[in-house]
């Protein structure tokens, strides 16, 4: 699928314009953050210009946002900052096929009065395809840096939400002054998922499938009407404005693909079922369980991004006493793990071109997951292709990125060894010509410094004022291998909750956790400010559109 080919030339013009004007506004820079130069030369490195195309002792020049030269015997511009790439590897910047990177979770919305109608308000029902992810983009989102330091330079970012949260955009994972600075191309996809609106229609997959069909068919009719009216309005009723249906028009005429967050085999089959009935362009944006579908996907025209959210290798205990039953069960579990791990090479063998997506994956595990995928049989050249040129082709941006060719966007990853080697680390990432340098840690992938973490690590006693009354308990945060972990224990006797996505930045603490209720996953998000030993924030359950205050006090360790 070539999504963006047509916009390439416009895009490159814009980029060069941006480069020329880069310093025009910069009156002074008391922060000292501005780079000394916008030209970089990485020398004497192993440059993987494209998957399978390796230059030993090569030089890469990135200047004013673009790759200007690559190869051996390259003249180094006088204004270049020279980076000695000896023993280092340089790769094209990685491309994330689908994620929420950079998108902030919107505030919980007011719970509508009249929830139980056949047609609840579209925003509550999660049917907002007219929304663009650019309105959720937040330059402060730490996911941008978290993904960048793994080597990702471009993300196809889709909005948070329910059934039809809105359109996805391609964003550059760079530091900008405004969200728009990050946007490479907007509205490149219609994003959808099997996420019902609890208590309102559509509540689950049943309603979502039907609603999808209904919306699509009405969009088709409305589009015909609009076009007929546009060509000759005489005697025709004026078409009504319906932003939801209008958002479907590019899907109906197949100029915009549908990105489905369908990770299980059953969800993926359901997405394909809708596609075959309605005929839109489909991308399975985050496929986890695809191994039984290799045959179905082959030649189907469906674009595939395979999830980098991979389970831990299941344990097979070295226990001589274990029963035959346990041994057999452990083996079966391992077999299924192996099926999942070998789906990458199986797809490749079938000639299915795929990229990767990081949605749902834990950032700190992505590198080791990629290494593991290669260990399970995916050729490392192919793995790199999935991260770079293949993803670029599938997203229609291979003319501007995906390889380290002259004239392409200055996106590159510099590592201390071959990327798919577990001991290698990312030293530099170039995004849109900007340089980002990283400390190489033994453990790799850490995200919070000890200093930063000090403000939060410890035990916090919380009180939250929920609709049910006051609830109390403790939250314990620790820092392990550079990452924050946390556990919440409620005094009400609920099970302990492992906290996810803990971020602590400039005094703002956010985390979330999930649990099952009535057969449905429910996510609770907590966000607030820490001032010394006091935390003040808000708890929100977006599934129910409720939020309520939470305060916590850090326990001072007893002497």
């Amino acid at each position, binding site marked *: 699928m070539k999504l963006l080919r047509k916009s390439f030339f416009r895009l490159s013009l814009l980029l060069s314009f941006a480069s020329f004007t880069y310093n025009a506004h910069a009156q002074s820079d008391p922060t000292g953050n501005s780079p000394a130069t916008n030209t970089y030369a990485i020398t004497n490195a192993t440059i993987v210009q494209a998957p399978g195309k390796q230059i030993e002792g090569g030089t890469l020049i990135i200047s004013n946002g673009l790759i200007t030269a690559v190869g051996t015997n390259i003249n180094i511009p006088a204004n270049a900052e020279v980076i000695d790439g000896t023993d280092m590897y340089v790769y094209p910047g990685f491309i994330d096929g689908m994620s929420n990177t950079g998108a902030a979770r919107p505030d919980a919305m007011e719970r509508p009065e009249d929830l139980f109608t*056949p047609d609840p308000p579209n925003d509550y029902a999660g049917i907002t395809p007219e929304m663009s992810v650019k309105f959720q983009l937040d330059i402060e989102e730490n996911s941008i840096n978290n993904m960048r330091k793994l080597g990702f330079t471009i993300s196809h970012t889709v909005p948070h939400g329910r059934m039809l949260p809105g359109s996805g955009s391609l964003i550059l994972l760079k530091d900008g002054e405004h969200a728009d600075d990050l946007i490479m191309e907007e509205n490149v996809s219609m994003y959808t998922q099997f996420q019902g609106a609890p208590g309102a229609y559509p509540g689950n997959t049943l309603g979502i499938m039907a609603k999808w069909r209904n919306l699509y068919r009405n969009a088709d009719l409305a589009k015909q009407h609009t076009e*007929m009216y546009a060509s000759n309005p005489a005697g025709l009723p004026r078409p009504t404005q319906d932003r939801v249906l209008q958002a479907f028009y590019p899907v109906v005429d197949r100029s915009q693909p549908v990105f489905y967050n369908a990770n299980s085999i059953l969800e993926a089959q359901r997405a394909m079922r809708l596609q075959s009935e309605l005929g839109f362009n489909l991308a399975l944006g985050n496929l986890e369980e695809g191994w039984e579908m290799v045959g179905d996907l082959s030649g189907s025209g469906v674009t595939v991004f395979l999830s980098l959210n991979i389970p831990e290798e299941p344990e097979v205990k070295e226990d001589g006493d274990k029963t035959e039953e346990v041994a057999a069960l452990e083996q079966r579990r391992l077999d299924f793990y192996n099926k999942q791990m070998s789906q990458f090479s199986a797809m490749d063998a079938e000639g299915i071109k795929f990229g990767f997506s990081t949605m749902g994956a834990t950032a700190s595990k992505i590198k080791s997951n990629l290494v593991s995928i290669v260990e399970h049989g995916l050729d490392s050249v192919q793995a790199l292709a999935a991260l770079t040129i293949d993803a670029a082709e599938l997203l229609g941006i291979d003319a501007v990125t995906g390889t380290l060719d002259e004239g392409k966007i200055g996106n590159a990853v510099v590592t201390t060894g071959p990327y798919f080697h577990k001991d290698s680390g990312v030293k530099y990432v170039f995004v849109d010509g900007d340089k980002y340098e990283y400390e190489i840690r033994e453990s790799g992938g850490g995200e919070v410094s000890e200093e930063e973490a000090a403000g939060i690590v410890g035990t916090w006693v919380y009180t939250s004022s929920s609709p049910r009354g006051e609830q109390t308990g403790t939250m314990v945060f620790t820092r392990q291998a550079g990452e924050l972990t946390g556990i919440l224990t409620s005094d009400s006797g*609920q099970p302990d909750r492992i906290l996810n996505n803990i971020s602590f930045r400039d005094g703002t603490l956010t985390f979330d956790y999930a649990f099952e209720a*009535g057969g449905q996953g429910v996510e609770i998000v907590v966000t607030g400010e820490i001032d010394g030993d006091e935390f003040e924030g808000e708890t929100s359950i977006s599934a129910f559109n409720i939020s309520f205050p939470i305060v916590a006090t850090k326990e001072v360790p007893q002497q």
Partner: protein
Amino acid sequence: MKKLNITLLLAIGVAFSASAQTPVGDILIRNATVITITNGTLENTDVLIENGKITRVGTDLREPRGGVDEVIDASGMYVMPGIIDAHSHIAGSSINEGTSQVTSEVSMEDVVNPLDVSIYRALAGGVTSIHLMHGSANVIGGQNETMKLRYGTTNPDDLRFEGAPRTIKFALGENPTRGARARGIQPQTRMGIEAMLRNAFNDALNYKAEWDEYNTTRGNRKVAPEYDLRMETLVDILEGEILVHCHSYRADEIYMLMDVFSDFGIEKIIFQHANEAYKVAPELAEFGAYTSVFSDWWAYKLEVYYSTAYNAAILTQNGVNTSINSDSGELIRHLFHEAAKSQKYGGLNDNEALSLITINPAMQLGIEDRVGSIEEGKDGDIVIFDKHPLSVYAIPQMTFVDGVKYFDYNNDPDDQRIWVDPTSAIQDVVLYDAHDMHLCMHEADFVEMYELINGEW
């Protein structure tokens, strides 16, 4: 001998796809007592299945020249048609879209879960076809899916009972009114349910009129009315293209629905559960309505208090086509025993009792030309028992769908799951309460869930 067993099917799972044919087999069963259901019980009789179809029922049948997958000596054993469960909720990822009182547009075919090990357990109870139903949270629920239990595939399409008529779930009484009461909306009474049904059908008639006008208007310069899958489905019901299977308990509500359907010219109804159907048996017979009931469930809620286990017998004696269903992942494993209870409670004869789980449910699903009896030309969906299937001591020995053996009591290895979550616990022990397997209201109770979440904080 051609061989095609489940392990092989698993191994070639990739070969399944929407367009692919599902597997068929060739089987010769010798010297069995064959309970045909529609043509008496035949001693020392052979049954030949070729390409998934029953081609011969007789004595001393010759093995076809090409051979068969298996010749089974069934001396002393009983062969009967595969059991059909007209009310099931196994193999579904979701059960209720209970967020609106009318959701005719949704369909269980969208949420079939072929990975559910309950399918295998049902096969082990001799079941070959099920009616995967939407739940009973709303008055007009979703469309159901009639399936064959071709276990071993990961593709939901392979379980489809190709050619089976469309059906839809309605629900009366306590379940839909309970949900509405919790939400402060209609219908909270059985009066309100009737009104809602009539409103829905009238809306559908108006919708149809709009589209009819559009379709009969000449010329290209015309604008289509809004498309509404919900109304489309209701129109299909009014036009007799979709069979209504209605969750109901009390006699009055059963009577009400017949009245409403008469007014709207809908000719067929199958009443599901219908614990008080016995009270209006003459009216059901007069209407030509069918009933699909429990063997003996009662007293778990008010509207089933005045039940009797003699329901199936009274209905049968009054000439009402009746089936016995499970509505449960537990009961589905021994429907032959549930049918036998009609002998204790009301003295049905063997053929009447076995009809309750074979030809009668087949008629209720509109698939009686394919399954439900052992007749030449019908599908090779059969089960072999070691003893008479109405005996409590009977154990299904082999179960075939389309002539393919999906269960063999004597070759039944441990762990019949076809999908294993790599993150699952090895020792995952689950305890069930008596009615956990009764899934009609599964996922339906928003209020209960809201409470759960409040309990979180």
